[in-house]
């Protein structure tokens, strides 16, 4: 799987390259600034891009802007955005086109190599990987709203993991329950939130995120 990597701090870039290579990814390009990232994304069209939000030369959200620009040019281009901090505003912008293949994680998540690589693979496969912090902020904001209040604690847990972009199998493993139980919880959740049921994992996640972001 070919990866374009954008990170301006040498140590982190180096660490990420080694990590990804150890898990069998091929680093097609590793850049350290916004303009080069845009060029790499548009010419290489990688299977997945791992991008730091803040990049030189302006040290503003150049990485994010490059990623959004590239996704407008190449719809569905999988991009996983990393940052020192997560902002709902940025999450909303990444999800705005509703086409999946996006991720938005805190840089700390790299510590857990297995989970991180799993997130990269998910994004490359057209899924999503949202940081638990984004999801908990979204849920906190919606806490007072009617339909969410009607969920059982277990259903809330499932909803959280689902919103992060995890598959039923992964949720079952995490909560130590059977996949059938997860499927039952999900159909309950979709019923309570009035969302159309769907078998497609990715579309399901996007529906949930859109629901949470609406209010």
């Amino acid at each position: 799987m070919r990866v374009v990597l954008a990170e301006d701090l040498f140590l982190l870039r180096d660490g990420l390259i080694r990590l990804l290579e150890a898990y069998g990814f091929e680093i097609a390009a590793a850049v350290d600034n916004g303009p080069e990232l845009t060029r790499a994304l548009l010419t290489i069209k990688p299977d997945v891009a791992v991008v730091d939000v803040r990049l030189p030369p302006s040290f503003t959200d150049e990485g994010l802007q490059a990623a959004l620009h590239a996704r407008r040019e190449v719809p569905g281009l999988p991009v996983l955005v990393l940052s020192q901090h997560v902002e709902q505003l940025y999450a909303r912008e990444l999800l705005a086109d509703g086409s999946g293949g996006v991720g938005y994680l805190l840089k700390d998540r790299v510590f857990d190599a297995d989970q991180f690589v799993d997130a990269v693979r998910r994004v490359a496969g057209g899924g999503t990987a949202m940081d638990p912090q984004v999801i908990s902020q979204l849920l906190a904001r919606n806490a007072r709203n009617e339909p969410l209040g009607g969920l059982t604690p277990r259903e809330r847990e499932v909803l959280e993991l689902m919103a992060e972009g995890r598959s039923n199998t992964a949720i079952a493993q995490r909560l130590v329950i059977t996949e059938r139980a997860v499927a039952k919880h999900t159909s309950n959740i979709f019923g309570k939130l009035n969302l159309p049921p769907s078998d497609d994992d990715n579309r399901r996640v996007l529906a949930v995120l859109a629901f949470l972001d609406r209010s």
Partner: protein
Amino acid sequence: MRIGAAPLAAVRGLALALLALPVSLALFIFSVVFFAVTFPIGFLLFPVVIAGVRSYAGARRRLAYTWFGVEIKEPYKPRPRFRRGLRGVFQRYRWAVADPATWRDVLWLFVDATVGAVLGLVAFAVPMYGPYGWVLAAGVWKPIFESGGGDWYTFIHVVDQNSADNAALLGVVYTLIGLWLAPRLLRASSLLTRGLLAPTRERELELRVAHLTESRSDALDTQAAELRRIERDLHDGAQARLVAMGMSLGAIEHLMDRDPEKARRLLAEARESSSKALTELRDLVRGIHPPVLAERGLGDAVRALAMASPLNTEVSVELPGRLEAPVESAAYFAVSEVLTNAAKHSGARRVWIDIRYEDDRLRLVITDDGHGGADASGGTGLLGIERRLGTFDGVLALSSPVGGPTMVTMELPCVLTAPGH
């Protein structure tokens, strides 16, 4: 509005004249007399009269602004804290006599009672002379003429209906001229008032220096307190965690061969520590300079704030570019503080934030639908915001009637740096 303004000005002219003639004159006479008699009554009463003069002048300044749009600043030296007893009496007397603004006030009283009053009367009388002509033409000329004489309407001798009609025609001219004249006369009168009641250039600079000294020391205090807080947070937080991590790593090195199971446990703990340290650093950075603010500027940073707020918040932003970094930061933290207040104390459900840039000023208006009754001096943090904005010559106004809504308006003079993207 344009048509109503002129008659209104005429009426206001009369009101001003009626106010200026007795009050200004009386205060002028009191001032002069009590200054002249000095010991002992003058010593006691002169400062009292001057205090009265100042509040009267203050009322007239406000009137000049609300009626004629002429803004007049206060020129007085700050009032000291007076001591009790005889020394206090001397102190008061000196405070009243030594301020040059006192004597400019007294001079103004005289000018206002004479020139000011005449201007006001003329502004009222000229347009009103017209209707008098019409009254004559309506038949009043007859009894006047019959009781012997006949009235002169300016240059027209009113002796019959014909000349009375001419007087009415001339009256129209008078009214038109008067209505044109009235607002101009009163504006001239207000400018005269400003000439005497506003601070002189020298005093204005003095006041400015006093303000700058105060706000600079406020800014330095705030900054020092901020640095202390950051130091403490780093010391107790991230720094302590790194020490703990170093110790864990040392222990792991030691245990690796002898007790790999325990070493593994310690490793997990060390990783946990590092992630907590990162979280703490992240929160600290957010408190110093929020990343969205650095990356996107004020508009998006406030939008991000609104998204994180438990209240239903609507944001509208009209900024043609980026602001200077310190202003941006001050404005951001001010909005953040006001939002927190609204969520904590106001009982509001909805908040509207309006940010715009007009006439070289950044204007922030935050309104909530809570129960109101907020008090700037009630320790709600508004005082802190006001001080912080004061460093940039910014101002804060609070309107919060009991029952709501609460509206906080902030204004900061500033320049735009780069166009936004």
